[in-house]
């Protein structure tokens, strides 16, 4: 066998100076030849640790072997057994913290792990481009009716798995487009909406019905759902933005990242006035937070023409929760960082709009319960950063519209749905839950993993219910 390259096979990307002027995808993906080259780096481990580290336990060496042989259809067949959304996961999963983190090749001195995510994406894209679908024979008579509330990654996964198993599935979605955070949160330059639409299309082809513009709790209520369906899966996410609540939060030009990204991604604010939803032209944008959402906001602001975009984060690069790839991309694109810095107050420019952010430097103390060093303000270290827009990306909380109209459902102390992580079962029989509404804001793949678990439990529940009602007759 040829000697393995130490580094991952290079992947084409848009040059930073070009890509900051557009919303097109940054990473252009592998060609088949590049993919074959990268696939050949895989050691084909017997007890492959990458499988265990994947929340949906994809047979990673298996699909990679097929790429090496140039057989993308076989690779796609393997992937589809485990994931309904490979083109999405290949792009947005934090592989460096999951499959790629444990890759044995990557453990060897001076070796990078196999680019598993990029290979998954290659296959996922091939499947979409070639309209590949499994040879599934879906039964005419359905095994049961299941309602899924929310069309984000968790809901889509449950729906796809149940449909494949012969269930009649309806997804209720509050917004006008399906996809949840895939549609309104993650920007086009990381996850093209065309890909999201195509992946959702493959799930609809399984017979899943998606009803948009339905807020469960308002348009229809849980009582109606429970009378019409055999079971229900709640996957409404953690979409309520938190605000720090410092002075000046109500000034014009202060956004939650949810609002900023929704305007840009879902409503195409970057194409205003062709699209009707406006977004402000800002010169100096300050983003608060260190997660992927902060990166996405900052990089979007740059693309709609801001001259200077800064991210302020209360800890250091070492604790940054964002994907390292996205951090590097942001630096290449000229995003500036203020480390160990926290906002104290937003300053009025005299017209009711924000003109600057008063910040304070932070010292890092002992590690807290999350294992990260606890930041505390350094007295007297305040200074002012000029800003005509501020975006708070400090996390989201549970979506309350449904929860407040469904008092029977038990919540945990953080206000999220109390569901058994092993089964997705909630305090209400027949109601299952998963994804961010159970865990708080996490990752796309974890939400999908929860969906896979719940889908199996829902099938068991519906079958048992049918048997029990059969006996009682």
């Amino acid at each position, binding site marked *: 066998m040829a000697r393995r390259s130490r580094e991952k096979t290079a992947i084409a990307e848009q040059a930073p100076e070009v890509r900051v002027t557009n919303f097109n995808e940054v990473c252009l993906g592998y060609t088949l030849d590049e993919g074959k080259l990268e696939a050949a780096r895989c050691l084909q481990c017997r007890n492959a640790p990458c499988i265990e580290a994947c929340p949906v336990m994809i047979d990673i060496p298996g699909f990679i072997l097929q790429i090496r042989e140039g057989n993308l259809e076989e690779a796609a067949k393997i992937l589809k057994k485990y994931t309904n959304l490979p083109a999405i996961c290949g792009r947005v999963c934090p592989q460096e913290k999951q499959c790629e983190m444990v890759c044995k090749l990557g453990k060897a001195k001076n070796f990078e792990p196999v680019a598993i995510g990029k290979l998954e994406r290659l296959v996922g894209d091939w499947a979409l481009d070639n309209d590949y679908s499994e040879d599934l024979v879906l039964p005419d008579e359905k095994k049961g009716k299941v309602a899924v509330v929310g069309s984000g990654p968790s809901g889509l996964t449950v729906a796809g798995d149940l449909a494949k198993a012969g269930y009649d599935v309806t997804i209720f979605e509050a917004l006008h487009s399906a996809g949840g955070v895939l549609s309104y949160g993650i920007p086009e330059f990381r996850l093209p909406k065309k890909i999201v639409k195509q992946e959702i299309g493959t799930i609809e082809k399984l017979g899943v019905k998606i009803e948009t513009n339905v807020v469960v709790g308002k348009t229809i209520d849980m009582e109606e759902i429970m009378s019409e369906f055999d079971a229900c899966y709640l996957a409404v996410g953690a979409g309520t933005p938190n605000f720090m609540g410092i002075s000046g939060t109500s000034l014009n030009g202060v956004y939650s990242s949810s609002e900023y990204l929704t305007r840009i991604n879902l409503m195409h604010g970057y194409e205003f006035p062709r699209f009707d939803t406006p977004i402000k032209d800002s010169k100096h944008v300050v983003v608060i937070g260190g997660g992927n959402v902060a990166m996405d906001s900052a990089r979007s602001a740059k693309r709609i023409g801001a001259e200077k975009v800064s991210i302020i984060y209360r800890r250091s690069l070492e604790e940054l929760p964002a994907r390292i790839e996205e951090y590097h991309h942001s630096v290449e694109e000229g995003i500036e960082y203020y480390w160990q810095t926290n906002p104290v107050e937003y300053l009025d420019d005299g017209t*009711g709009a924000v003109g600057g952010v008063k910040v304070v430097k932070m010292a890092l103390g002992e590690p807290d319960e999350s294992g990260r060093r606890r930041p505390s303000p350094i007295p007297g270290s305040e200074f002012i950063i000029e800003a005509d827009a501020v975006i708070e990306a400090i996390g989201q909380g549970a979506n309350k519209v449904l929860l407040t109209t469904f008092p029977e459902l038990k919540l945990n102390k953080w206000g999220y749905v109390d569901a058994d992580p092993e089964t997705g079962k909630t305090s209400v029989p027949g109601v299952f839950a998963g994804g961010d509404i159970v865990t708080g804001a996490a990752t796309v793949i974890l939400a999908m993993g929860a969906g896979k678990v719940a889908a199996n439990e829902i099938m068991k529940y519906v079958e048992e219910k049918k048997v029990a009602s059969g006996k009682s007759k």
Partner: protein
Amino acid sequence: MNRITKYRQLSDNEYEIWFENDRIAKKAQPGQFIILRVDELGERIPLTIVDTDKDNGTVCLIYQVIGKSTKKLSTLTVGDHILDVLGPLGTPTEIKQYGTVLLVGGGVGIAALFPIVKGLKEAGNKVITVLGARTADLIILKEQCEAYSDELIVMTDDGSLGEKGLVTDAMERIFKRETVDTAWAIGPSVMMKFCTLTAEKYGVPIYVSLNPIMIDGTGMCGGCRVSIGDTTKFACVDGPEFLGTDVHWDEFIQRMKQYRDEEACSLETYQKEQVIDNG
């Protein structure tokens, strides 16, 4: 779904439409609103539910053309479909027996006031309604409000209908004359602010319906956030109704102006396109 069944022009730039939407017709309560999007390029705009016909599964909206989206909406007519309609949204008005209630509506705000007038009358209250507008043509739903009011007073800036003067003049007169248990005011923000000040002077609790900028309308973005007393509330889920005395009016009015330039640009671009397309 969302097929327009009735269409009526009420004044120079105010329109009434009825459209089919079973679910909303079945669930809507006074004080609630919908979010709609006219077409694929459209933005999401909130409009109050004025009335429903449960038997036919239809919903009534009244809107004023003030910018591009309402302009586009006004081009739809019977048989056309509104692309997206989401609702009913918001917390409903608390309809119960208060005693004597005073309801004040200004301009197109009368449309939002009407279901509350109707609800409160049906709940057995003594209903006094004050309608105000710049001129006679802009007093909408006068007969409908009259049908559910024990007393109806009309005020116009130019005296072309009812009395010449402001709605607050009528409020003062009523407060001096009799005990009012609870009041509501819906209309332009400046009007609601002054109605609040008037009610406060007489110690009458007053509810207002806030109409901040909204995007999703389901509590997901905080674009509609308002300061209510010492707290931040999202008007789309916590409101749109709040006690007027708790609202930070100047801040609210300031935030409404956030996209004034963009709104003007959007309308201007649209009008130019219309001229090119239609000659």
